[in-house]
């Protein structure tokens, strides 16, 4: 519990520092959006500031109500990290976890989209498998550990199964919604061109549902990480989650933090990859519909200057889409 609370404070401090920086930078630039390089610098500052606060609290052994005296310092963690990077286990853990999450997630993406489309397009499929899906859906994937142990001959397959289940339902539900929300005239147009069922699937349903599908994939990759780490903690051999839990049981707190940082970075990288792929594949989306969100963030800046040019606001709208999808 104590460890959790400590991490929470660090997170909050980081957010606070970020806000202060952003406001100051915005005021200085009077209404003009920050150039890309400036924004990256700002993001780095946010991370560095968080580490600084962490280091200060722990190296000064601050013991207010929250107790940082037992908390590993940034330098402790950095040393532990360097040691781990030099050893062989770290990379085995990393590739094991990545293999598990990628297998589970890709399987969930394919099957989630397939069942989502099926359930949305066929009344028979909806009646046949809809009820089962609805009953299984609320069960947290991690609660399926006993099922996985009973069903699968090896732990490895069980972990992939749990990761799969975690991502499957967000993908399924988003796909189902996206397919049902498709504009009917698209399908009617293809029908009156002589297009059949498969043509409609390939030319209307899948491309049209893609923005929604990627919403589900973004959620899915996040939930997959939670579940793969938890599953590894319970029943894994090797893997970042397994290692983190091992370190905790032998009271190696710097090691625990190495695990946490690793999970954070891997999660961030994979969800960014999903995000970028999604943005690439749905480039056709009209940008204007996202402008409202993009502009709201700069309301104060914009009011003191003229309307930002649409070309200049391009990076901003991308940012807004981020939030929309997540």
């Amino acid at each position, binding site marked *: 519990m104590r460890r959790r609370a400590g991490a929470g404070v660090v997170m909050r401090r980081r957010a606070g520092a970020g806000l202060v920086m952003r406001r100051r930078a915005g005021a200085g630039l009077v209404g003009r959006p920050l150039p890309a390089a400036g924004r990256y610098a700002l993001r780095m500052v946010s991370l560095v500031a968080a580490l600084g606060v962490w280091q200060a609290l722990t190296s000064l052994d601050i013991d207010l109500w929250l107790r940082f005296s037992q908390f590993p310092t940034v330098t402790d963690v950095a040393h532990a990290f360097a040691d781990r990077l030099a050893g062989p286990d770290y990379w085995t853990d990393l590739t094991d976890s990545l293999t598990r999450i990628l297998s589970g997630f890709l399987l969930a993406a394919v099957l989630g989209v397939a069942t989502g489309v099926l359930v949305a397009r066929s009344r028979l499929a909806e009646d046949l498998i809809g009820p089962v899906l609805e009953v299984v859906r609320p069960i947290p994937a991690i609660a399926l550990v006993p099922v996985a142990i009973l069903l699968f001959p090896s732990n490895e397959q069980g972990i992939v199964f749990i990761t799969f289940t975690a991502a499957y339902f967000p993908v399924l539900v988003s796909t189902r919604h996206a397919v049902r929300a498709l*504009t009917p*005239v*698209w399908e*009617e*147009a*293809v*029908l*009156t*061109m*002589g*297009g059949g069922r498969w*043509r409609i699937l390939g*030319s*209307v349903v899948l*491309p*049209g549902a*893609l923005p929604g599908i990627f919403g589900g994939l973004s959620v899915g990759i996040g939930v997959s990480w939670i579940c793969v780490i938890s599953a590894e903690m319970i029943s894994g051999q090797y893997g970042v989650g397994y290692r983190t839990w091992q370190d905790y049981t032998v009271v190696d707190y710097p090691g625990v933090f190495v695990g946490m940082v690793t999970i954070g970075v891997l999660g961030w990288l994979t969800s960014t990859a999903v995000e970028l792929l999604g943005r690439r594949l*749905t480039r*056709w*989306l*009209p940008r*204007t519909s996202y402008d409202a969100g993009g502009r709201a963030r700069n309301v104060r800046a914009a009011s003191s200057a003229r309307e930002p040019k649409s070309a200049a606001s391009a990076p901003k709208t991308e940012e807004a889409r981020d939030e929309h999808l997540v």
Partner: protein
Amino acid sequence: MSTSSDITEAAARAPRVTDAPPAHGTRLTLRAATLGRPDAPAVTGVDLDVAPGEILTVVGPSGCGKSTLLRTLAGLLAPLDGEADQDGRPLTGPSADRALVFQEDALLPWRTLRANVELPLAIQGLARADRRRQASDWLARVGVGDRSGQLPHRVSGGQRQRAQLARALAGRPRAVLMDEPFGALDAQTRAGMQDLLVEVLHGTGATVVFVTHDVDEALFLGDRVALLGNGRLTAVRDVPRPRDRTARDDPARLALRRDVLSSLGS
């Protein structure tokens, strides 16, 4: 093209597909038909015969079942009662024979204008190079050749409707069914589109059923005007020719217009 000298005379004479002689129009017939959805029949007792190559406009107030009529002819809706025939054979479902042009944006938003026009050609199995060329030809013909690489939302509403027209005609349908295609356009653009439509249709030989709530548009475009109201097809009138936008004060035309307006009860 340069190798045309060493292929047979017949092949050399074979024109490019877009220059092909007009496909024959098709005859569309409704007999004692009740149209609509089972829970809400929109039009009853429709008898209508659209001759091959004819332009029939259907005019009536909103919600009178014009779209239902068109969707039935397209094969998207089966008649609840009576018969719907094409050239004497009952309609069994949608087909590339009868293209539908919608009022709303029915272009696929993730495809460029050209890729949209290529779609019916791809469905017909044309080779990539052929469909590219034909799609570009069609877009040029409707006046948006320079926008062919744009996504639909990057061009104006009028340009989108031009592209939709190109897409409908590219598949060489024998009938073109148009559901208020210019309804969302401003008056200026609309007049231009009407002229364009007449120009582009000329020589395709396609039968056209054009639905509108604008009486003047119906009188300008139609060879005949069908009046729809109160869930019935109330009358079908011949329209004097030649087509002339400036001849609105022609007495015969004015009389027809008055007659149509009073039949519609407006």
